[in-house]
């Protein structure tokens, strides 16, 4: 069956709900205020997203309290959250950690944690550097010995505020995945200053901490790879949302602002740059939708689709944000205008879950394009 690259009616409804909520609760002034407070984002908004819109349980099976929807819907939410650079731990908890949990075999502990995270009662994160890319070797910065974990991982997405940590660890017989309660003794989560002020990062240190194993060497590497791939695929949709806001707000600004007696929007050099951005957004959206669809249907082409989407959308969002700042002129350089929130998000997203060139390197061999010797 041909993949559906459009937004379904249900997806459009979901988008409208999320957008309504964010328009109301997450205007740029509010985002800036929250980021200045330096906390863990907007817990109340996060709670509403989870409980009222079910945004944290979209692709979780019905029997665990989820919506039984798919990554397509998750991507739609990510797109809207990107459009508002909403400071909520969606990527860390509802995408990366949830994907990892979904990949593990059913089991008492996994099911319980997944249900809690899906319900929005707990927030989780996947303890890998946010810059991790598919195709890397399994991380062994944390070592597991007889169910106890030690080691440090830097620059983890949205770690501060997480109630439970999904931790890849090198065990005696190979890769393993653990769930660790953030309140366990020996767990230190240090919020560090994030370049993307709308998405906090943390350094996680574990010293002889008790964890519950949810995947062993037969499965852990695949689960982690799939989770990171899903994260990258969903991030592409977030990037589409970021790029779209940047284009829209720049168009609006240029229409209102006059220079030398003419609307800035009437200057052809600017018009052509905006037209080019619009072109980029058209192809980025198609790529992101395809990635979401392939992930949703566990399609054979998912690795290719994600590589295409992530490497392209990362560049498009960053380019859109840079143009947004430039074309806003001086006002775009000020702290009080929201353009910088998008610039920081877009630039960080270009590094997050694999840079474009890293994705090119993974993608090439999948389509029989091998690097030069």
């Amino acid at each position, binding site marked *: 069956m041909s993949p559906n690259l459009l937004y379904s009616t249900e997806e459009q409804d979901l988008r409208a709900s999320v957008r309504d909520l964010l328009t109301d609760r997450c205007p740029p002034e509010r985002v800036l205020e929250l980021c200045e407070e330096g906390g863990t984002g907007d817990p109340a908004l996060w709670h509403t997203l989870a409980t009222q819109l079910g945004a944290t349980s979209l692709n979780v099976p019905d029997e665990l309290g989820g919506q039984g929807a798919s990554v397509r819907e998750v991507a739609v939410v990510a797109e809207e959250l990107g459009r508002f650079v909403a400071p909520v731990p969606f990527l860390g908890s509802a995408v990366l950690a949830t994907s990892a949990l979904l990949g593990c075999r059913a089991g008492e502990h996994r099911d319980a944690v997944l249900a809690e995270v899906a319900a929005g009662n707990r927030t989780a994160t996947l303890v890998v550097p946010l810059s991790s890319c598919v195709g890397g070797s399994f991380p062994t910065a944390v070592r597991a010995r007889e169910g106890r974990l030690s080691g440090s991982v830097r620059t983890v997405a949205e770690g501060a505020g997480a109630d439970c940590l999904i931790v890849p660890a090198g065990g005696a017989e190979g890769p393993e995945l653990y769930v660790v309660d953030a309140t366990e003794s020996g767990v230190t989560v240090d919020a560090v200053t994030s370049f993307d002020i709308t998405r906090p990062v943390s350094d996680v240190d574990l010293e002889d901490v008790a964890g519950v194993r949810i995947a062993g060497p037969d499965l852990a590497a695949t689960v982690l790879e799939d989770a990171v791939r899903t994260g990258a695929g969903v991030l592409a949709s977030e990037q589409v949302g970021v790029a779209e806001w940047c284009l829209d707000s720049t168009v609006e600004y240029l229409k209102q602002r006059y220079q030398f007696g003419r609307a800035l929007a009437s200057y052809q050099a600017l*018009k052509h740059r905006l037209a080019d951005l619009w072109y980029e957004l058209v192809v980025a959206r198609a790529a992101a939708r395809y990635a979401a669809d392939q992930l949703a249907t566990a399609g054979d082409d998912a690795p290719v689709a994600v590589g295409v989407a992530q490497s392209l959308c990362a560049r498009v969002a960053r380019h859109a944000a840079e143009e947004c700042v430039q074309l806003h002129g001086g006002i775009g350089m000020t702290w009080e205008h929201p353009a910088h929130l998008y610039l920081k998000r877009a630039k960080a997203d270009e590094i997050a879950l694999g840079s474009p060139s890293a994705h*090119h390197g993974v993608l090439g061999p999948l389509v029989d394009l091998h690097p030069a010797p």
Partner: protein
Amino acid sequence: MSESVADTVELDAEGLRSRTREFLASNDPATTDRGEFLRARFDAGLAWVHYPEGLGGLGAPRALQPVVDAELEAAGAPDNEPSRIGIGLGMAAPTILAFGTEEQKQGFLRPLWTGEEVWCQLFSEPGAGSDLASVGTRAERKGDGWRVTGQKVWTSSAHNARWAILLARTDPDAPKHKGMSYFVCDMTDPGVEVRPLRQITGEAEFNEVFLSDAWIPDSNRLGEVGEGWRVAQTTLMNERVAIGGRPMPREGGMSGVVADTWRKRPEGADAATYDRLMALWVEAEALRLAGKRLGQQLAAGSPGPEGSAMKLGFARLSQELSGLELELLGQEGLRYDDWSLRRPETVNFTGRTAGYRYLRAKGNSIEGGTSEVLRNIIAERVLGLPAEARADKDVPWKDLPR
């Protein structure tokens, strides 16, 4: 064609399928002469089913044409070689249908569709490309017809054509958009001279057409005098429909050619060009997906403005990819196959050698609307930015700077 078809046939897929089978039963493609078969098909209303009865159609939904085509193809029937007569089918016919007199429709459409008469388009001029409304080819009224003088350019098929659709200026004192009329020009007229127009590839895909007092009877005018621009809009709209839209497999275009070159490990393949190749491959794949998405939008009845993105991206990528390919080839990229002047039967952007592809791709951002004009259209019609200032709308054409 004595009685109305609609009385006898249901205009749904089943009805058309059975009508096609009936037609085939009485016109066996294996034993019928090709021309005869095509004329019969036209008369049976199976040429273009959405055209009116008596003009090759049945007034059926356009979407049902594939049903008929599939039946005919399965039966081994000859087609009308649409790639050879694209301008007639895609541009002249809809315009004749929309603006022609009954006599014009009856006279022109049948041989146009069967391919017995090839059509070409005399629109662009050396001084009127993107700004088509500034055409200067002059048609002057003489008795019951017109004498036409001027130069047209970028005309494909002109050397094979029997007829041309022609945009000419009939009133130089009127503002540019209001002083043009639209004609059907007889390409066998002694005042018409066709010369091959050689391109940077060495080939002559197109022609220049010189009109020197060419005679056009007034009965070959389409639309009213002075209404040429409006008539031409119909022609151009149909041209745009024809571009893009066809589904492509991955690596279906220039990206596949260059990827294959890479796979052969050419001299210039290094780590730096690998990343450039991958970035372009990715964009080509995304553009392909955008085309697919556009098709899905159309199918869902909500066409978007993404068509202009497709053309912009296609031009960009074919240029970047073919440029990269020459670098990949290194020494081989310094050689060409053949500069001699040829007149290709068909044009294949991904054909011949890398050098040809590189040069031919330069035309992709010029022909059928330059990338600059497309960016204006996107900025103004899609993003709603103000239109460019222009000073040519209300001034008599003859007074415009040129």
